């Protein structure tokens, strides 16, 4: 299961790569350079969290960790779908925050 979740997170990063220009334009229109910075910081944080996650031994017998991985898995799928959809960029950014938060919790307990 953990391998699938990691793959889905990787896919979410790739989706953002593919639509990066659209997201940046949107952020710039709605909040200028500050919003662009914030968006790119979140993207970087997701990438680095992903690197930490693949480089960490996960004890999937830990029920809390298993639960968080399930959440991360669902969030990664939703994030990819939302980015690919491109209709509601606000929703994508909110999902990016949510995914980051869950992955952060996972890394905090391993």
């Amino acid at each position: 299961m953990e391998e699938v979740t990691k793959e889905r997170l990787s896919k979410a990063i790739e989706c953002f790569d593919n639509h990066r220009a659209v997201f940046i334009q949107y952020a710039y229109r709605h909040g200028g350079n500050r919003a662009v910075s914030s968006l790119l910081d979140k993207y970087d944080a997701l990438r680095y969290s992903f690197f930490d996650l693949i480089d960490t031994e996960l004890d999937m017998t830990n029920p809390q960790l298993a639960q968080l991985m399930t959440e991360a898995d669902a969030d990664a799928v939703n994030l990819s779908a939302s980015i690919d959809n491109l209709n509601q960029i606000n929703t994508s950014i909110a999902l990016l925050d949510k995914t980051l938060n869950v992955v952060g919790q996972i890394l905090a307990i391993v």
Partner: protein
Amino acid sequence: MKKIYNAVCFILLISLLVQCYTARSIVDLGNKTAKAGSSVTGEILKCYALMGNQAFVDQRQQEMIRLLSYPDPRRVMLPAIRVRQLKSLPAKINAFTSLQTVYKSFETLTDGTDKDASRDAMTSLLNSYFTIKKLPDLPHAAQQILPGATSEFTVATQANKVKEQNEVLGKLSAAYLEIWKKDLPVWKEYIDRIYLDYAKAVYALPESRFDPQAIKKLVNQPVNTKYQIIFYKDKVQQDAKQQIATINDELDQTTYAFETLIQSHQAVTQRPVSVSAVSAMLNSINSTLGAIKK
């Protein structure tokens, strides 16, 4: 009667010489195997260093992309991104360095030039054994392979005990191989993200970010600027894929050399030893490592 006595003496002498020659050949094989181990662990350490360097490559690439992504680049403060290494690297580098020290000490032990070699071999074995045992994410398979007791080391650190030496080196290296094999998919995923994220980000950049004159020099196609930029972006993607393939090939070749090293240890422990089979394995290791260096 005297003739028969002379013939028996001659046969015994020949037999003794053959035994001495075989024993010497096996000791030589032990030395060559230890040398191969030094070379393989040297290549492994190069791969770990290569992975460490990727963090710097990633930082440079992502920083460039970040700068080019801003609609208003005057607001960008550099450096905007800090270098982030894979956290598990230092402990692994430390462990594989200890394994390389083991092989170097066994090289000295088997060439018989240093009277303290036995003590040094024991020290390095113990150090490497405890270093790997202390790794936080030691794979279960590695724990099972590791020699259960360090008592095996005492015999293995005697100069002429080639079979015992290769038994211990084979087991220790097989445990290390499990660590290496566990790291491989992590690294491949890491490398994919580093190079593909960059290439895809370049692909997403607006045309206004490119200098038509510079692009013209890089893309030798008789088409207008708009298409040249597309060709250039495609070239960046192809270069990224090539870079990934080159690194993956180095990792795979190193894996092959490492596995062959362990097979050669096992072959040296067989009785009778097939000198030609072990030599073929050692040659294969050397040619593989030689091809990587090119």
